[in-house]
């Protein structure tokens, strides 16, 4: 099953099973069915609940907030994740605050879904991974499916969550095949975080301790099979730990994975400074200090803009070969 089909089918199921679910976003009228086609076919099936909207990102999230407070379960699509900046106030000062400011008397069960990421040559304002700006916002879950597990099922769980959820998809993953069972030399298991969201463990070895722990999520997870396969040829045992809920972090699970090897690499597509890896490194230095053999290594894009020219973009965004080279260096 492909990532995109999985998401599309889950939206269909949600609409069919729960009359409170409403889906809206720009350009989702069928037959066009949305910029990335995630909602295709749904507007035809449920014309009163799948709505195409004007280009008003801030108001879209506000609509969702107003709906959620009055008992609906809105799923709003923001066409490109880069445009989340336009929604920041409604996420930060409305969606995630109502329940707390009103002392727990209301809930705001909204899901804002959006595709992030580069690799398509769309340029600096259409290729970013700015979910990092929302990490750590109190009372906000940030969830990002990768190629492991069932992306659609994750979306269903996100929509059923009673708190606001930012659901981060990745453009390059839409045509990708989801990986479920063990394949290609990888052993895949999963653990549950404190809200029962899966954290996938992908190993290129059967038993014993890994040499290095690679922590990543979302779009970058597509490099895991390749990295594990190449490093297996070097007899390097790699444990890839791939959470699906990336904020709040599954600290206990990450600590355990870090201690197994004592060498940690965190991989993200967003820019380096103050990113996802920075928080993981801070938490691990508190929880795993004695077990770490060296400082946590963060791999991310440089602190600049995503260039448009193909070869520049390829060099800018982290790649599998970059990660492999960093890991080989770290094993000295």
């Amino acid at each position, binding site marked *: 099953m492909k990532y995109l089909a999985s998401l599309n089918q889950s939206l269909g199921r949600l609409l069919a099973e729960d009359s409170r679910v*409403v889906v809206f976003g720009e350009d989702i009228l069928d037959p066009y069915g949305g910029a990335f086609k995630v909602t295709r076919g749904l507007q035809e099936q449920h014309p*009163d*609940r799948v*709505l195409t*909207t*004007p280009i*008003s990102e*801030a*108001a879209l999230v*506000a*609509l*969702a*907030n*107003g*709906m*959620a*407070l*009055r*008992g*609906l379960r*809105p799923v709003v699509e923001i066409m490109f994740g880069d445009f989340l900046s336009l929604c920041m*106030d*409604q996420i930060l*000062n*409305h969606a995630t*605050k*109502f329940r*707390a*400011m*009103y*002392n*727990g*008397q*209301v809930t705001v069960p909204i899901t804002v879904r959006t595709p992030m990421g580069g690799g398509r040559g769309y340029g600096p304002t259409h290729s970013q991974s700015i979910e990092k700006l929302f990490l750590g916002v109190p009372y906000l879950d940030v969830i990002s499916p990768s190629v492991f597990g069932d992306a659609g099922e994750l979306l269903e769980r996100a929509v059923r969550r009673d708190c606001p959820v930012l659901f981060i998809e990745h453009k390059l993953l839409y045509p990708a095949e989801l990986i479920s069972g063990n394949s290609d030399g990888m052993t895949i298991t999963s653990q549950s975080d404190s809200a029962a969201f899966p954290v996938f463990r992908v190993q290129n070895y059967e038993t014993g301790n890994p040499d290095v722990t690679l922590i990543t999520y979302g779009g970058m997870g597509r490099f895991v099979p390749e990295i594990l396969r190449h490093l297996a040829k070097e007899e390097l045992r790699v444990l890839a730990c791939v959470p699906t809920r990336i904020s709040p972090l599954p600290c206990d699970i990450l600590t355990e994975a870090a201690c197994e090897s004592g060498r940690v690499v965190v991989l993200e597509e967003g820019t380096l400074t103050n990113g996802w890896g920075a928080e993981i490194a801070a938490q691990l230095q508190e929880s795993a200090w004695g077990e770490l053999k060296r400082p946590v290594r963060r791999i991310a894009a440089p602190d600049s803009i995503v260039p448009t020219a193909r070869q520049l973009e390829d060099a800018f965004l982290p790649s599998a070969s970059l990660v492999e080279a960093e890991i080989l260096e770290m094993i000295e």
Partner: protein
Amino acid sequence: MSHLEISNKTDGCDAPATVQEDDQSLTELYRQMYLIRRVEETLLDLFSKGRVSGTIHTCIGQEVCAVGVVGALDKSRDVLWTNHRGHGHFLAWTGNAEGLFAEILGRASGVCGGIGGSQHLHAERFYSNGILGGAVACAVGSAFAEKYKQSGAVVTVFMGDGAMAEGIVYESLNLSALWHLPVLFVLEDNGYAQSTPKRFEHAGEINTRAATFGIETTTMEASNASEVFSATSQIVSQIRHTMHPQVLALRTFRLAPHSKGDDTRSPEELASLRDSDPLPAFRAQLIRLGYDLNALESEVQETLERSLAVAETSPPAVPFI
């Protein structure tokens, strides 16, 4: 669509509720206005004595808007959204002076446990937030939900003239008209955005803007509560039937500062405003009609003092987890 001065509009809707001069509800309107005025004055007094921390935005002078509009809503199903200057709206909706005092005094018995405070009040179907314009857009979303659930509810949202400079207000007007949602936008135009007069805030007129979205606007002076009540009743009834939003633009004025200490108006201007204060005018009108308001006012004062006493002695707020 045009913008209209107050007039009789009876086409295609229920018989509008009108207030007769000898109706019981006149004294009720006065009682609510008086309660709001006394609560706001008490709060300002508590601040000046250092017994409360933070800030408040009082609606002294604008009680007609709160009481006239809210009185015409159906409290069993309608929804109300407001902004940072929401005490009047809150009291008109709930009458809960004790909960309001406790909230502002940081008590656990406050309507939001002392966590939200003055700008973030909540009650059944009542929501507010301190970010200008945000509530306007949320209100449109609530209206969608109510229409979807076929509850027959109308969603009312209060905004000030200052908010008419926020972009999201225009996104909201557009969506409400495009999707035919039951929203009543109430614009309380008091001529000032914080310390800045309107002429430095807005190009053109603000109460004609909704017309470009196909939304009818009614403009009136907010000097007479029963007039505002009648107008609102008509408009709300139309919205319920047509499923289309409308704007009610009320010309009013603030007698007190924006919050505290940010009043840059001249003493002459303030004196002239006080001369047009609707509350004493209403009082005089009722006395001329033969009503004795002493008992009513004493009762309000007593309720207020009791509420304050209870609030001040109740346990402090606890953290929200």
